């Protein structure tokens, strides 16, 4: 394709965009909205997945002891835990240490704990490491049976819940995204249809003087792609800004939440959104060209 022909295509596409200002605006807005929601779901699902696998890699069982055990009784529980198959390390975390760790995690917000006064509701506990992820569940169950043990918790439960949540978010997200993508497709194909209609005379003449079908199609295809890309760009800018703010907020107040850092995470999502937007635009015009222009 000659450069001058390409210039011609781009000029024609831009002219149409301007001429159908309102429809162009509606298309860009719809695409932006759809892709923004798609982007948000991507960010959410990927972060939940990330959290789940971070937790999974920490194969640690927290064994909470009943209140009111004597030192001797506690030491006995510890010895029994050591004998459970797969256990490689057992360390004691007393009430006071648990409290000071908690305070540390809360950071600036530890003032909240003042409401408790002198009381410390946290139990004495053992932190137990197991050599193999698959043994965690069985080991935790054995520990739960031990005398003096209140509860034995391990990451897996949270991990399973997180995975279930991810799955749900994914399904809902998918449904919403499909609907929004269809809406975007519909609006773009309508915009292009209007362009095709406005230029049907020109198209007729192009056909009579021997323009190839692709020569006729390109400006419309470009127009659709520009609409899609424009919408995606709006979504990307918004998402980038919002995630930046979110990360900042989380680091300040909820530092223990393992969020995926902004870069290159958001950059990758941006690429996905921009490509998706452009493809939706191209598809939208293809639909219109097929139906309203016999070329």
């Amino acid at each position, binding site marked *: 394709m*000659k450069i*001058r*022909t390409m210039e*011609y295509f781009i000029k024609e596409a831009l002219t149409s965009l301007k001429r159908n200002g309102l429809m162009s605006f509606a298309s860009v807005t719809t695409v932006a909205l759809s892709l923004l929601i798609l982007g948000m779901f991507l960010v959410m699902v990927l972060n939940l997945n990330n959290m789940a696998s971070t937790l999974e890699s920490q194969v640690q069982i927290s064994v909470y002891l009943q209140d009111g055990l004597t030192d001797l009784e506690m030491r006995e529980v510890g010895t029994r835990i050591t004998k459970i198959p797969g256990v490689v390390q057992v360390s004691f975390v007393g009430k006071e240490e648990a409290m000071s760790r908690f305070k540390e995690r809360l950071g600036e917000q530890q003032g909240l704990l003042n409401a408790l006064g002198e009381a410390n509701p946290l139990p004495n506990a053992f932190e137990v490491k197991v050599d193999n992820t698959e043994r965690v569940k069985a080991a935790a169950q054995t520990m739960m049976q031990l005398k003096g043990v209140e509860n034995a918790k391990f990451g897996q439960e949270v991990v399973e819940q997180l995975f279930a949540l991810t799955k749900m978010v994914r399904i809902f997200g998918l449904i919403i995204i499909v609907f929004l993508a269809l809406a975007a497709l519909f609006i773009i194909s309508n915009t292009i249809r209007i362009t095709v209609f406005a230029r049907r*005379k*020109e198209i*007729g*003449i*192009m*056909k*009579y*003087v*021997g*323009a*190839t*079908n692709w*020569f*006729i199609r390109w400006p419309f295809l470009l127009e659709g792609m520009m609409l899609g890309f424009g919408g995606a760009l709006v979504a990307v800018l918004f998402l980038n800004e919002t995630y930046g703010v979110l990360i900042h907020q989380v680091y300040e107040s909820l530092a223990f939440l393992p969020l995926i850092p902004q870069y290159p995470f958001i950059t990758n999502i941006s690429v996905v959104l921009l490509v998706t937007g452009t493809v939706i635009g191209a598809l939208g015009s293809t639909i219109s060209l097929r139906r309203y222009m016999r070329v």
Partner: protein
Amino acid sequence: MIHLDGVSKIYDNGCVALSDITLDIPKGDFVFVVGPSGAGKSTFIKLIFREELPTKGKLIVNGRNVGELEPSEIPYLRRNLGIVFQDYRLLPNKTVYENVAFAMQVIESSRRDIQKRVSHVLDLVGLRHKAKNFPGELSGGEQQRIAIARAIVNNPVVVIADEPTGNLDPETSWDIMRIFERINRNGTTIVMATHDKSVVDAMKKRVIAIEKSCIARDQVRGVYGYED
């Protein structure tokens, strides 16, 4: 140049527009296609530039079997044809120059060729001084001359005209016919459907009369042969 062998055209609704037409139009011919309205003139014209497909028979235009052309080959057939319509079909928001240049742009001619050719054909139809005007500022005859300039700008081997003088007064029609004659003298084949009795009678060219979907007459130096 154009060769029909047993060509029929039956539309989807069962209407027979042309029935078993066989004829030959050699290169450089000037042919009038005449006949009552609805007899099949327009269908004949449309078959040549592959607006319609023949239902039966073989139609060869400039060495291509039109009935067997792939859709992607149609543009290349049309690049060898110039088409002129009764209603001019100019683009109102482009200048005279741009309207003619458009036909070269869409087949990706170089900028230099476009400048040279467009000036040349505007000279040929005598409207170079109106190059910067818009079609709306021109008379009907001038608009048709622009349409002819556009039709010949890509050096077609055949110019097809469907009632080119249908909207014009007699004097203007003659200006248009003189331009067609000049184009024909340069070796371009001309096929023209027309209702213009005085033009056909005066020019003494080949006349093909189509009546009731069939060829009723094919005369070398023919006359219109119908009462207006």
